[in-house]
């Protein structure tokens, strides 16, 4: 057990938490937050395990991947938020049409 | 590739191309449409005659296109193919003439003739197929191209008839596909071969082969209207008369019957099939269908429905002939393919004439119609006598050979079926004839149209007369060279006598 595995496990936990919230919550903003938390979990796994080199310098490749991933995440979040707002403007509720009235 | 290889393709193209062009013609381009139709039919006839001559002089007409890596699309003109091919080519020409007259002013004629040509293309393809997958391809194409014809009238009844037709044929097609693929996985080939291509297959495959046979026959039996797969045929009567003629005499039911002949002769081989023990049940099924169809026909007042049930019964003669699995019965079955076509198309043309000219749809409305339309009813009478099996009309020849063949194969029960069926045929045709010729006409016909001083339009009258004459001629000149009987004997020889 080392910090690498500790944070990787935290990553797994965040991924699962986010997935739970994504399934359970109906509010779209909440779902978007959940996706972001999930993403952070995956990034954490990627980077934490890069620390297993046995030297002070961790593996740089996953770091680059995660930076790419963060940008993807913010792009997707922006698109999702816009979509959510527009949908709410149409329906009056920030929920998926099929979930409304449940 | 020499010229001979192109001819089967040309035969296909001679109806496919006019058909495709016709789709794009405006409704009112009647003359061009007619020209295209007739030209296509004549070109096809010429090509077929050319091939007849060639095959007789032992030319090989074969086209091969690669379809799948190990499977080819094969078009080949063998004796059996040519028999069916000639029939459908001649009848297409006749039916086209008839349809031109029949659909004089109805809407959607371009669509109708387009699909009509496609339908014939598919039938010709079925006839020329050199292996089972090619057969399957055209068989399904036939389904697709006849559906629009069945529902052509566009009424609610037509829609339901079309639905019923589809349910039956799609289901049948699926079974046929399954049987075909299965067979292919066992043998690695699907090439039609005299005496079949399964002889080398090991003993352990016999159960599978029995099931495959059942699948193929079931798939083909839908179109051949074997009981209990016949349900669509009487319903399909809502289609215009030329379509009924096409369905009953040329294309659909014939394709089914022809397929059964192919499967028994060129896929399984008669001996092999008999050895499997599958021909006898098939013979019984055919016999049942013959009796059942006749019985049902007895109680129909609607003329076309009566003819439809008659078709169910008559087509099964072909199946019966091949299922008896003897050389003489084979002749009877194969020749009936042609004979039944000619006779039945005559009857449908006549029924169409009655409906179109006088508005008569029911047997009970036919009193005295013989005096109003003598030529039509003469043709009808010839057809009806043929159906009953009375000499000298062609139907007699078929039944004669079937009976002889059954005796030769030691299946005496067939004689009773034939006799019973003939009696029933008489029972449902003779009252019609009696009513038409010997009863007083009614005060007014349901819906009369006048065509000058003729009894009806020439395009409507000519076709039934021609086909009736042909049926008569084939019966009387049965032993002439190039007669259907001659070909049937040739085919039977190929199957039963090793060179």
């Amino acid at each position, binding site marked *: 057990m080392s910090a690498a595995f500790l*944070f990787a496990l935290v990553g797994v936990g965040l991924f*699962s*938490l986010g997935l739970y919230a994504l399934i359970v919550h109906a509010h779209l903003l909440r779902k978007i937050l959940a996706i972001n938390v999930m993403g952070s979990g995956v990034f954490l796994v990627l980077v934490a395990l890069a620390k297993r080199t046995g030297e002070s310098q961790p593996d740089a490749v996953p770091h*680059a991947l995660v930076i790419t991933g963060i*940008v993807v995440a913010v792009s997707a979040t922006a698109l999702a938020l816009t979509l959510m707002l527009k949908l709410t403007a149409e329906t009056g509720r920030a929920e998926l049409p099929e979930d409304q009235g449940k | 590739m020499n010229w001979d290889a192109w001819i089967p393709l040309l035969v296909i193209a001679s109806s496919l191309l006019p058909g495709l062009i016709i789709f794009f013609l405006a409704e009112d381009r009647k003359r061009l449409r007619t020209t295209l139709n007739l030209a296509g039919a004549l070109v096809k006839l010429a090509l077929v005659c050319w091939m007849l001559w060639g095959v007789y002089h032992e030319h090989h007409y074969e086209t091969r296109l690669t379809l799948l890596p190990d499977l080819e699309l094969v078009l080949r003109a063998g004796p059996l193919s040519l028999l069916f091919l000639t029939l459908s080519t001649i009848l297409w020409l006749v039916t086209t003439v008839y349809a031109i007259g029949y659909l004089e002013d109805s809407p959607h004629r371009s669509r109708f003739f387009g699909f009509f040509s496609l339908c014939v293309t598919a039938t010709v393809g079925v006839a020329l197929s050199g292996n089972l997958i090619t057969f399957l391809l055209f068989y399904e194409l036939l389904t697709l191209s006849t559906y629009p014809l069945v529902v052509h009238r566009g009424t609610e009844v037509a829609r339901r008839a079309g639905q019923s037709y589809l349910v039956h044929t799609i289901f049948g097609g699926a079974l046929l596909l399954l049987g075909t693929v299965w067979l292919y996985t066992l043998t690695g080939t699907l090439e039609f071969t005299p005496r079949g291509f399964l002889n080398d297959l090991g003993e352990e495959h016999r159960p599978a082969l029995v099931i495959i046979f059942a699948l193929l026959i079931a798939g083909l039996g839908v179109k051949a209207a074997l009981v209990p797969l016949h349900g669509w045929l009487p319903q399909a009567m809502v289609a215009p008369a030329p379509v009924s003629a096409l369905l009953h005499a040329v294309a659909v039911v014939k394709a089914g019957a022809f397929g059964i002949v192919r499967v028994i002769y060129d896929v399984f081989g008669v001996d092999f099939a008999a050895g499997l023990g599958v021909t006898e049940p098939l013979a019984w099924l055919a016999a049942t269908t013959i009796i059942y169809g006749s019985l049902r026909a007895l109680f129909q007042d609607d003329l076309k429905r009566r003819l439809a049930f008659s078709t169910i019964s008559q087509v099964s003669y072909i199946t019966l002939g091949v299922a008896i699995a003897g050389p003489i019965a084979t002749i009877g079955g194969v020749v009936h393919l042609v004979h039944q076509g000619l006779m039945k198309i005559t009857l449908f043309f006549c029924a169409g004439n009655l409906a179109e000219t006088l508005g008569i749809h029911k047997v009970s409305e036919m009193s005295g119609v013989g005096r109003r339309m003598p030529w039509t009813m003469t043709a009808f009478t010839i057809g009806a006598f043929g159906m009953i099996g009375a000499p000298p009309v062609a139907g007699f020849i078929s039944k004669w050979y079937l009976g002889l063949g059954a005796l030769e194969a030691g299946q005496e029960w067939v004689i009773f079926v034939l006799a019973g069926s003939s009696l029933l045929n008489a029972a449902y045709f003779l009252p019609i004839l009696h009513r038409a010729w010997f009863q007083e006409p009614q005060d007014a016909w349901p819906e009369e149209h006048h065509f000058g001083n003729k009894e009806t339009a020439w395009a409507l009258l000519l076709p039934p007369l021609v086909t009736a004459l042909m049926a008569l001629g084939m019966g009387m000149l049965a032993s002439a060279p190039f007669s259907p009987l001659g070909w049937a004997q040739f085919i039977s020889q190929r199957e039963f006598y090793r060179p």
Partner: protein
Amino acid sequence: MEALTLLHWTFDILLGLGLLWLGWRVLTSPDLFNAIVLFVAFGLLMALAWVRLDAPDIALAEAAIGAGLTGALLLAAFAKLRTVEKNHDIAGQLEKGKLENRSFQWWPATFLLVVAAGLGHTVLSLPHYATGLSAEVSANLKSSGVSNPVTAVLLNFRGYDTLLEMVVLLLALLGVWSISGSALPREAAPGPILDTLSRLLTPVLILVAAYLLWVGAHAPGGAFQAGAVLGAAGVLLLLSGWRLSSHLAGLPLRIILVAGPVAFVAMAVFTMLTGGQFLEYPRAEAGTLILFLETAATLSIGTTLAALFLGERPKNKREYP
């Protein structure tokens, strides 16, 4: 030394638990606004976690994007959501951001416990030492043109990913512009304080962005981080009521938005015409070319992020005087 290790462990465990707890609260707190604030705090802790994992480059990106811009995006969206809901006048339905906190659901929870356990087991089953590609990276670092390995991977070894990355941003913006249309709430006048703040902070942000861009070649930093900071400058300007003048909102703006991907495409064509592979920089000029690419990318990223924050296509006439 013993005490130091203990402290390290305590710090890491507390940080990890804090992350999990915050993640949980973000997703369950009944108040939506609260959830957003907690999410910003969550980003903060994530940045600390990156630091603990020796990933300062990511920490920078997270500080700028994860905690900063995403927070601003979420807050702005939250505000618009309120306005929209108010317009729909569905009284009391989502009163003050309180949502019906759906009761704990057993089936998903059980399922996800199993998933988490399985994934946890998998993670623990991985070998305890693995060098990954670090050997290859350091072996080729010299010929990459930069000395920061993360920048080397991003702009050279896997520069193609970065090219596609720029396209992802562009696509998100295209999507947002294509979808949006919801009117912005009219901005109140910025007031003297905010005005001063933005006047002071904007140049600093731009300077910092330039600094991060420059330093990225040999130390943590680079185009993404610089772009994010630049984007933050844009956001601050937008928040202070500044709008792009109308004659710049058309083609000039679009050109800046695509400068990054265009630079990449140009580079790709250039490298291939000069006989190399796709994006194979000549070894000698690699550093310069990378800086050129990064500059274009920074401009694009910054502008795109700011445009994403604005959320709607800038109009060709001035809406706010």
